[in-house]
């Protein structure tokens, strides 16, 4: 029922790759301080991610058995320029490819390889020239030309298409010239002129020239993402919004869409005109399933070969000798928290007298000290997640870990009681009612019950209020909450992502209204830092300050996602940084059914 919106998870490798590219000059990808970890138990031979065809391995089943069924939420769109959700993006990467592609580097890290492009761009000033590989074709056999890419960019930047990921090409990221202007344009008369002024041109069928506002270190990374995939002008002109229907769709990726049964499943078959590594699978059926416990049962019944499962079911899998090797727990770049409204007179007392601010801090401290995170994770999630008092996720450069903060905000009942006394509510006496907003699901109910009980034990009465995911988000955006079940999923692996805009005064995602002069100053330092070390140090200062002051967040744990991957399925290399909707989805052409 819920759509997991991992947002820019796939934004993947963006800055980190920039670092690799610029700092390390492409030499030796320092082994994976990524959020990624390869699936330990997949049992499949690691297939080199791209380029080198590895089909026809000795352990591969004959072609007529090369079929698999996987679980995924139902995509909203199959159009890469309209997609907003992880499952949309997962399927779109099966169907389409851009100029470049992100794959596993064989060490758990990420690398960019040319896909439709013949090689790296030639850069002159702010102009990036990319040559296409010769002989590229669409799935209907027509040649894939540079103009198709141009049209893709024009759609992405067209406000009427309303792509949720247009920001990828806008200021601060892709910096494609004229994209923001075209997107924000409301004057029909201007549209044509602005479209013509967009910084992408095709002087001939195999050459693309991009004009950017300024140099972008992450060019090839961004130009590998779905927002840059090409589009067929004639097909879209003919079918309009129905161009992604199986009968109409024309693709340039390894698979093509042959069937969509809304609310039930979609079927993919190999694209005969795909020029890259030939996929071994002859058919992929994507079942749209939101109920993960049912999906787990279906997996055991061989109805699925790949599915995400609930944390509580991972124990069932671990206790079963045949299921155990098929379980993959993939750490996620997300910290789950309890968020605190700092405008609240009791909990934050923003702008009030020093005394009130101090009292409010002690109350937050009591809330944090009262939570036994280890037991929470063990009890509710069977130990799948990792208890955390940090905010910069493990795997990220700049990660400080819990050791730095456990003594300050970690579980300590006595300290919690003392903080409550310091806050002026000994044993909870005189404390006004507090509510926490939670998204309603069986696991979340248990989590909320756990927290409410933990707080009650030191005398703080918190009433949980359960709403569905949209109502929860609406409450957050309108800042109508005291405590809030929250967290942050990294969009791309860089320390700035979970900080900038979240903790600076007036930041776009700072709905808990954290506002600290020290933090704002540290952000300034980071922005003006000339070295990577200085920048990271500034961000670590921010983390330390917000965590120890519990400025809007009380960290609970770092998430992980458990998946079941059939031992019959080979070629699945998990890479949490670039996977979407399942392990190894970044290279679907690598998958095969074993004998």
């Amino acid at each position, binding site marked *: 029922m819920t759509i997991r919106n991992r947002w820019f998870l796939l934004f993947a490798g963006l800055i980190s790759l920039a670092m690799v590219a610029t700092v390390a000059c492409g030499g030796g990808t320092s082994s994976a301080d990524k959020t990624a970890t390869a699936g330990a138990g997949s049992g499949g031979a690691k297939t080199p991610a791209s380029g080198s065809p590895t089909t026809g391995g000795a352990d591969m089943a004959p072609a007529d058995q090369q079929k698999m069924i996987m679980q995924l939420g139902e995509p909203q769109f199959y159009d890469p320029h309209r997609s907003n959700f992880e499952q949309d993006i997962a399927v779109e990467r099966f169907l389409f490819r851009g100029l470049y592609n992100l794959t596993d580097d064989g060490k758990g890290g990420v690398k960019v390889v040319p896909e439709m492009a013949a090689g790296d761009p030639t850069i002159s000033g702010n102009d990036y020239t990319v040559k296409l590989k010769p002989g590229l074709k669409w799935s209907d056999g027509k040649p894939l030309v540079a103009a198709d890419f141009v049209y893709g960019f024009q759609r992405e930047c067209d406000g009427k298409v309303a792509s949720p990921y247009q920001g990828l090409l806008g200021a601060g990221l892709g910096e494609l010239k004229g994209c923001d202007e075209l997107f924000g344009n409301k004057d029909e008369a201007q549209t044509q002129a602005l479209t013509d002024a967009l910084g992408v041109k095709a002087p001939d069928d195999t050459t693309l020239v991009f004009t950017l506002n300024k140099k972008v270190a992450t060019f090839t990374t961004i130009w590998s993402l779905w927002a840059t995939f090409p589009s067929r002008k004639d097909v879209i002109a003919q079918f309009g919004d129905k161009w992604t229907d199986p009968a109409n769709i024309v693709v340039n990726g390894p698979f093509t869409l042959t069937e969509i049964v809304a609310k039930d499943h979609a079927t993919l078959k190999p694209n005969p005109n795909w020029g890259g590594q030939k996929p071994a699978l002859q058919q992929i059926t994507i079942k749209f399933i939101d109920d993960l*416990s049912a999906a787990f049962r279906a997996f055991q019944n061989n109805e699925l070969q790949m599915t995400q499962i609930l944390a*509580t*079911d991972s124990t069932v899998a671990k206790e079963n000798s045949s299921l155990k090797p098929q379980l993959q727990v993939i750490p996620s770049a997300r910290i789950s928290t309890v968020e605190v409204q700092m405008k609240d007179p009791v909990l934050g007392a923003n702008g009030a007298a020093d005394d009130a601010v101090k009292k409010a801090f002690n109350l937050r401290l009591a809330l944090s000290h009262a939570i036994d995170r280890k037991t929470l994770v063990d009890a509710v999630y069977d130990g799948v997640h990792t208890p955390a008092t940090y905010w910069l996720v493990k795997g990220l450069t700049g990660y400080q870990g819990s050791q730095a903060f456990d003594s300050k905000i970690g579980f300590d009942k006595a300290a919690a009681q003392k903080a409550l006394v310091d806050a002026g509510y000994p044993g909870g006496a005189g404390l006004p009612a507090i509510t926490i907003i939670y998204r*309603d699901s069986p*696991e979340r109910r248990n989590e909320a019950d756990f927290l409410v009980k933990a707080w009650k034990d030191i005398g703080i009465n918190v009433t949980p209020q*359960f*709403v569905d995911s949209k109502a929860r988000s609406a*409450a957050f955006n309108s800042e109508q909450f005291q405590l809030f079940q929250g967290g942050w999923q990294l969009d791309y692996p860089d320390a700035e992502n979970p900080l900038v805009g979240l903790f600076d005064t007036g930041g776009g995602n700072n709905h808990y209204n954290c506002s600290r002069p020290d933090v704002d100053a540290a952000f300034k330092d980071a922005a003006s830092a000339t070295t990577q070390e200085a920048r990271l140090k500034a961000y670590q200062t921010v983390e330390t300050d917000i965590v120890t002051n519990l400025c809007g967040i009380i960290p609970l744990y770092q998430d992980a996602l458990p998946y079941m991957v059939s031992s019959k399925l080979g070629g699945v290399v998990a890479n949490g940084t670039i996977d979407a909707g399942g392990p190894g989805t970044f290279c679907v052409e690598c998958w095969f059914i074993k004998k």
Partner: protein
Amino acid sequence: MATQAAVASLPTFSAEPALGRQRGLWSDAWRRLLKNRLAMVGLFALVLITLLAFLGPHVGPFGRYAPNDQLYTPGAKQAAPGADHWFGTDQLGRDTWARVMEGTRISIEIGLGTQLVVLFLGVLVGASAALGGKFLDNLLMRATDITYAFPDLLFIILIRAVLTGRSWPVVTSPRIVIIIAISMVSWTTIARLVRGQMLALSERDYVLAARALGAPQWRIVFQHMLPNTLGPVVVAITFGIPIAIFAEAALSFIGFGVPPPAASLGTLVAIGYTTIQRNVWNVVFPAAGVAVLMLCFTFVGDGLRDALDPRTR
């Protein structure tokens, strides 16, 4: 679905009121009810369950969080039934017996609460329609028709979504949210029943006589008409309780039931179902609870119907 099932079980009351005599009717009915073995078993079981449901969490060696009021003790989760925990424990190591008893209480509260609101709304609308003149009758009956045409469970889901998480005056607890939501779709049966009964009664001799004698309208309504509509209404209400419990349980199962922290039986089934492979008992006991409650109310409802309207059997 709920109201339709209710209507389906009520065809015997469709045309005319069952009550010929006034005096002795209730004592007659009571005697007949006492003789109905199934109904008495149901009634007895209901009393017992209700007692347990209200006292149950305090019966036995454990509180809501067992053991020792610890929320979670490693190793204590998802335990099978045993001497320490009669019904086993759940994911957080809580005692399932206590949870099921608490859930039963909430389910009973929802069943009764819903029917109270339904009774109030239904009698109000039905009586106003019957007595309030042609215009009001038309208006109210059209409103009833429209409500009746609404797909029940869909409407409940919508109302629940609107009310959940609000801090409005009446909507103070999650239970009230679901009670309001279910009542909003279930009052039509009673309204139609009351209206039909009243219209039929107003042409009865004793009502005509009272009117001829110059008795004021309110007195006729309260002394003669309302008491005489009571029988069928009581039966309909009794059948309405398990239907409301069922509706709530079914909605809970797909995540639209009583919002937490209250956990009704349906919610417990839903939560238990997600971990059914760990511990089947967390589904078995609350599921059995729903079944037993529905069974008992159905027995009592059958008994009441037979007792109040002897012609049906």
